[in-house]
């Protein structure tokens, strides 16, 4: 019964970490999307220099462990720049940049899967390359990217707990604090785990709803007969 009372005692404190966790996820998804879409486009239609720069960015960001990246930003890069940012902001930027690297590849793959015909047809009716990307390529590529993109939510949700290491008051950090107070690790970490599971389930519902909303008959399916 000590476990149960520890959980009940901790619950309000841990629950108030939910908005922090969700804030980290939302911001890093947003940063990743805002950078990943243009970088994915540039990987397909950009010039050689731009492509090279993005390749290096993707290679580095995907090649470093989250925690290493987080420490580099928290103890190194931002202090050196003299920017006084909160741990929350640094956490969101770090997770967001890393997600941008993954999202770049997701959007690049989706654009390539369209084939060159869509761009040729758009140019042939007089669109500029930018008009074609905006009106023809992206509306299709973003839809095709959705299944792969939806992975980013559970990945960022679970990864957000590494910000524990720089003291962001998200779910796991708060759980840890309550463990040191109550000496009941198992019940409290289980509580944290259930919260992550619940948030994951909720997010998936939203993504599935979005996929249905964005559905267009036959889009992305190769014709079997002409």
């Amino acid at each position, binding site marked *: 019964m000590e476990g149960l009372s520890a959980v009940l005692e901790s619950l309000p404190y841990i629950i108030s970490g939910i908005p922090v966790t969700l804030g980290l996820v939302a911001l890093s998804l947003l940063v990743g999307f805002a950078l990943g879409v243009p970088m994915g486009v540039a990987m397909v239609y950009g010039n050689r220099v731009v492509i090279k720069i993005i390749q290096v960015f993707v290679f580095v960001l995907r090649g470093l462990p989250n925690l290493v990246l987080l420490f580099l930003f928290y103890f190194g890069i931002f202090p050196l720049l003299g920017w006084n940012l909160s741990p929350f902001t640094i956490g969101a930027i770090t997770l967001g940049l890393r997600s941008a690297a993954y999202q770049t590849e997701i959007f690049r793959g989706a654009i390539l899967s369209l084939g060159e015909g869509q761009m*040729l*047809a758009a140019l042939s009716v*007089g669109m500029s390359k930018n*008009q074609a990307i905006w009106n023809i390529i992206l509306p299709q590529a973003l839809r095709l990217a959705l299944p792969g993109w939806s992975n980013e939510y559970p990945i960022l949700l679970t990864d957000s707990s590494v910000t524990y290491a720089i003291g962001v008051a998200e779910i796991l950090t708060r759980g840890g604090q309550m463990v040191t107070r109550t000496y009941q690790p198992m019940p409290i970490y289980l509580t944290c785990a259930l919260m992550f599971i619940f948030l994951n389930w909720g997010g998936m519902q939203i993504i599935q709803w979005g996929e249905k909303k964005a559905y267009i008959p036959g*889009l992305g399916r190769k014709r079997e*007969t002409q």
Partner: protein
Amino acid sequence: MNTTSATSILVVENIYKTYGKTEILKGVSFTVNKGETKVIIGPSGAGKSTLLKCINQLIIPDRGRIFLNGEEVLHSHSHINRFRQKIGMVFQNFYLFDHITALENVEIALLKVKKMKRPEAREKALKELARVGMKDKAHLYPAELSGGQAQRVSIARALAMDPEVMLFDEPTSALDPELTGEVLEVMRNLAQGGVTMVVVTHEMGFASSVADEVMFMEEGKILESGPPSQIFFHPQEERTKKFLSRISELYGELNRNG
């Protein structure tokens, strides 16, 4: 060549294109007059598709000049974009925009390129869809159309821009045989209605009954050209004869009525 003639719409002058070490086009020239239908025939690998793509600069030729209505095509982006509006292109694989309906496919360039108001664009798009017999399918997505229907919508999409010339790149080659007829009929009507067209095709029946001139292309050059009666029944070049006999084995003998 008389490039200033009032009736010549499209002048193609000495076009060369090389990929790596392969020379695809080796100096192709021809002129299309207003209302004419020119048909290009020839074996695969002859450079027919590359030639069409060079005409509207989807492929930039290495050398040679293109004139539309006496105006030379310059190689700046803004100029090319404006120029492409005046040349309609129909692709072998249709390339309809898969995320929007048939109607929106025809409408989108009117809205985004010609900056028409929506009601005006809709009216124009419906008119063009009616012209290819697709008005009643306007609300369907490309994946919901048969190949023949999709190709007709892609013709309407090109026509909607009121192009000076229409280019057709093997428009029936990707279709099941029983669907080619509906597309060829639309094209026949366009030709008779005075639309200026350049058509790459293996449909010899269509070529012989509709073309004002047939050009036989092989290895990056136009080997022989003339009225269909001459090319099909009295070809001068040995290789034209050979090609035609191979084609008639595949598609059946040609009769003079097409």
